[in-house]
C-alpha cells in the first residue's frame, strides 16, 4: 500500500518536473556540442595550419588564436554564464532558460573542442603529411583528406569526453537560470528538501553519462 503511494508520489514528480527537464538538458547539450564542434573545428583548422609545426607556420596569427582559446578556457563555466548574460540577451533575447544557456555553453565548449581536435590532428604522422605534400595535395586537402581522415577515432574519443564534461556544465548552468535536470535537482530537489527529486535527477545524470560513454566507445570502435 505504502509502496504504491510512494511510486505514485514519485511518478507525480517524475512526470511533472523531471521528465520535461530531460528534454531540456538534451537540447542544451546537443545544440551546444554541435555548435562548439563546428566552431572548434574551424579554430583547430587554423591552429594546425598556422601552428609552430603547422602546414603554413605563422607566428602572429597563431599567437592570436592561441590567446583567444586559452583566455576563454580560463573562465569557469558558471562565471562565463553570468558574465555573458548581456551578450546572451542580445543574441537570443533572454538571459534565462535553456536557450540562453546554449550561448555560454557553446562559447565555453568551443575552445575545449578546438584543443581536442587540434591535438588529434597534430597526432598524425609527420611523414604522412610529407607524403601528401609530395603528390601535390593542397593544405586544405592535407588537413581534410589526410589529417582529419586519419584522426577520426581520436576526434570521436575527444568529443565523447567533452560531451560528458559539458553534461555536467549544463547542470551547473541550472544554478543560474538555465533549465534542465540540473535546475530541477537544485531547485526542486536540494532547495526544497525533496530527496526523491534530487536523487532521481542524480541517477538520471549517471545513466546519461553511461549512455554517452557507451555510444562514444561504440563509435570509436567502428571508426578505428
Amino acid at each position, binding site marked *: 500500500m505504502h509502496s504504491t503511494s510512494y511510486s505514485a508520489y514519485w511518478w507525480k514528480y517524475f512526470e511533472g518536473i523531471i521528465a520535461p527537464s530531460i528534454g531540456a538538458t538534451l537540447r542544451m547539450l546537443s545544440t551546444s556540442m554541435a555548435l562548439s564542434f563546428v566552431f572548434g573545428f574551424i579554430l583547430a583548422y587554423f591552429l594546425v595550419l598556422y601552428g609552430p609545426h603547422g602546414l603554413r607556420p605563422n607566428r602572429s596569427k597563431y599567437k592570436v588564436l592561441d590567446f583567444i582559446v586559452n583566455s576563454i578556457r580560463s573562465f569557469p563555466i558558471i562565471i562565463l554564464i553570468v558574465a555573458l548574460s548581456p551578450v546572451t540577451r542580445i543574441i537570443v533575447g533572454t538571459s534565462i532558460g535553456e536557450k540562453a544557456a546554449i550561448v555560454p555553453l557553446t562559447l565555453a565548449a568551443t575552445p575545449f573542442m578546438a584543443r581536442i581536435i587540434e591535438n588529434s590532428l597534430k597526432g598524425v604522422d609527420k611523414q604522412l603529411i*610529407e*607524403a601528401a605534400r609530395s*603528390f*601535390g595535395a593542397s593544405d586544405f586537402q592535407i588537413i581534410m*583528406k589526410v589529417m582529419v581522415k586519419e584522426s*577520426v577515432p581520436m576526434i570521436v574519443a575527444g568529443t565523447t569526453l567533452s560531451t560528458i564534461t559539458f553534461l555536467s556544465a549544463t547542470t551547473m548552468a541550472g544554478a543560474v537560470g538555465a533549465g534542465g535536470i540540473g535546475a530541477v535537482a537544485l531547485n526542486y530537489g536540494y532547495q526544497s528538501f525533496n530527496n526523491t527529486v534530487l536523487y532521481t535527477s542524480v541517477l538520471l545524470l549517471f545513466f546519461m553519462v553511461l549512455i554517452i560513454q557507451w555510444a562514444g566507445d561504440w563509435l570509436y570502435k567502428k571508426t*578505428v
Partner: protein
Amino acid sequence: MMIRAHNIVKSFGDTPVLCDLDLDIRRGGIYGLAGRSGAGKSTLLRCINGLESYDNGSLIVDGVDVRTLSRKDMMAFRKRIGMIFQHFSLLERLTVYDNVALPLRCWKYKSGFIDRKVRELLEIVGIPEKVRQKPRELSGGQKQRVAIARALSMDPHILLCDEATSALDPKTSQAIINLLIEINKQMGITIVFVTHQMSVLRGLCREIAILENGKVAVSGMVEEIFRQQPAALRNLIGDDFAMPSEEPAKMVVLVLPDTVTGSFVSRMAVELGIDFTIEGETSTFSTDAVPGLPVSFPEKARHDVEDYLGRHNVAWKDINGHDGRLEPIETYRERYNAQMPVTQSEAV
C-alpha cells in the same frame, strides 16, 4: 640532366646541413645518395621536390628552377615527382585502393579514370588482390608496394626514395629493389635513392654520391667507388668492414659456373691458406659489369690465386683493371661451353 644542383646551401637555424653542394643526376638512371645520418642526404632529397627550401644556390629539376615556383606551381610541379618513405606513410584508415587513389582524387580526376589507373598500378606492383585490404593487414613489403603504386599514380618523371628499404628485411628489400629496377626500365623513371645500406647501393644504383658534412665527398659509378674504396666510403662502412689498409689488396670478380657454389671460395681459401673477403652478394651492380662474385684477397697471394683459378677453369675479371690476367667474358663462355663436362667435374 634530370637534376642539377649547384652550390646548394641550407641550414636549420645555426646548423649547416648542405654546404655548397654540387650534384648532377642523369635522366633515366638510378642514383644512390649515401651518407651517415645528418650528412644531409634526406634534406637534399626534400629540396628536389620542394618539401624543404634551400638558402642559396640553384637547383634545376626536370628543367624547372625549384626556387622560382609559386605555391600553386609547386603543387603542379610535385605531380611530376613521386616519393616513397621508410615507414611507407599510408593512411591506416583507408583501403589500399583509396590510398593509391588519393593523389588522383586530390587532383580531381574522374572516377572511371581513377579506377582503371589504380587497378593498373596495383597490377604493376604485384598486389592486385589486396585492393580492399587496409594497410594494417599487409606486410611491410606489401605496404611499400602500395606506397610505390601511390607514388606512380601521377605518372612522375622522378621517383624519390627516402630509406625506402631500411625498415624491411633483406629478402623483402631485395624484392622491392627488383621492382624499382623494373619500374626504371619499363617506364624510364629516374630514381633517386637515399640509403645507408650498402647492399642497396650495390644492388640498385648505377651511380652514387656519398655525402659528408653537407657536401658530396665522392661521386661516380658504383663499381668504381666500391673498387677504389675512397675514404668517404670507408667512413661510411666503418673500418671493421673495410679491407685492411696495411696490406695491399686485390679485388676480382669470379665468374663461377652455375654448378659451383660459395664453397668454392672457402675451399680455395683453405687450400691456399689465405683470407678472402666476399664483397657483397652476387654482383648485379650494372648491366655492363661482369656477373659474378666479387672477392678480394691479399695482393701478395696473386700468383697462387691465379694459378688455382686457372686449374679449376674459373674465369675471373680483375676489376682493378691495371694488371693481372683478364679474360673477356665471351671467350670464357665459349671455352666454358666447350669444356662443360670437365669444368663441372673439376669445379664441383
